[in-house]
């Protein structure tokens, strides 16, 4: 049987509580409209969300896992960016 490839889409859902859209999974569809409908049918069967995004999978540029160490190194070495870096005396109270 001749099965033709259909484009792959990534699905993002925003839940009712108003947080950001979160990646839920992927699916195949011939165009964006079909992707949106399929995403509704497959990824929101139990009221998982109130807003959907579909994005062509090949439009996503991902960071390379080989460079992971180097790429994310700047965040690891800057502990002073975290509030816990600073010692505030107990007398000052909650800050």
């Amino acid at each position, binding site marked *: *049987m001749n*099965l*033709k*490839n*259909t484009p*792959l889409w990534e699905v993002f859902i925003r839940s009712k509580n108003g947080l950001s859209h979160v990646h839920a*999974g*992927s*699916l*195949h569809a*011939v*165009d964006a409209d*079909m992707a949106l409908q399929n995403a509704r*049918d*497959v*990824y929101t*069967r*139990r009221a998982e969300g109130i807003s959907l995004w579909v994005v062509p999978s090949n439009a996503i540029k*991902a960071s*390379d*896992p*080989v460079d992971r160490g180097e790429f994310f190194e700047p965040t690891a070495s800057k502990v002073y960016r975290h509030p816990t870096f600073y010692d505030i005396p107990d007398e000052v109270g909650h800050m």
Partner: protein
Amino acid sequence: MYTQALNEKDPNAGKDKAEDPVLEARFQARVDEEMRIEPNDWMPAAYRRTLQRQIAQHAHSEVIGMQPEGNWLTRSPSLKRKAILLAKIQDEAGHGLYLYSAAETLGISREEMESQLLSGKARYSSIFNYPTLNWADMGAIGWLVDGAAIMNQIPLCRCSYGPYARAMVRVCKEESFHQRQGYDIMMQMAKGTPEQKAMAQDALNRTWWPSIMMFGPHDSDSSHSEQSMAWKIKRFSNDDLRQRFINATVPQAEYLGLTIPDPDLKFNEETGNWESGPIDWDEFKRVLAGNGPCNHQRLSTRQKAVAEGEWVRDAAAAHAAKVAARAANKEEAA
């Protein structure tokens, strides 16, 4: 069961080029530290292949698994039961999709997997090669087959391969509804008329042994799972999971007032386990080899569905192309 592929010999074992020992050691260290392996990470060729095969078989099982239930859709005893059964079958389609998506991240296309299913090259869980002969089978399948699936799939939520683990988290949440609605059918029938109770018992009689065979061969005969354990694809042995399932199910059958069709089933005071009688592995192998009661029917139904849906897929593709062309023309004109 759904992890049936992990019990089979890898047909390409030993044909790989030697892996880079440094990369392989780093990979195994990540697995040992319980870190997830993600699609673009380096992985041994055999790990990739094992997962492709395993996840694809799992997906095929979900898709083929719609058929035994679809058999009763138009003959459900009430509108409520029909709506529930339809929702369950839709879930199975969804599970198939999550799993196909996870397998695709390993570099195999959806169409390639589907072709392997249609040509008979890829397998699916042998449990779906049994017929559903009475309405109570819908109850027994939910209770036992989905119950066994949950037992198997919960440890897969911690599988070392990230996309598979994440798909399983979603599947397990939904699977709980499947098992409970199945038990709900069994409760209603077991407490119904003598005829209804007899149907429930008949469904249990036919579903019990195939369900416990779903966990795969005994550990002593399952020589291929060691590597999957080391890779943390598989977390518990076949016999461990089977024992847990039996221990959980025996009291549930008791509550229903139904008898598990195993005259040798006995409680071991020392271990606290319900020990089953001997399993008929010849039967298991027969169904696995393609000679179960419905192997041919399941595959030909699927082939027919794909063939008859071809014009729909073609029409959708043609429509999408036309809309895209129209949009391009408009842009040019503007």
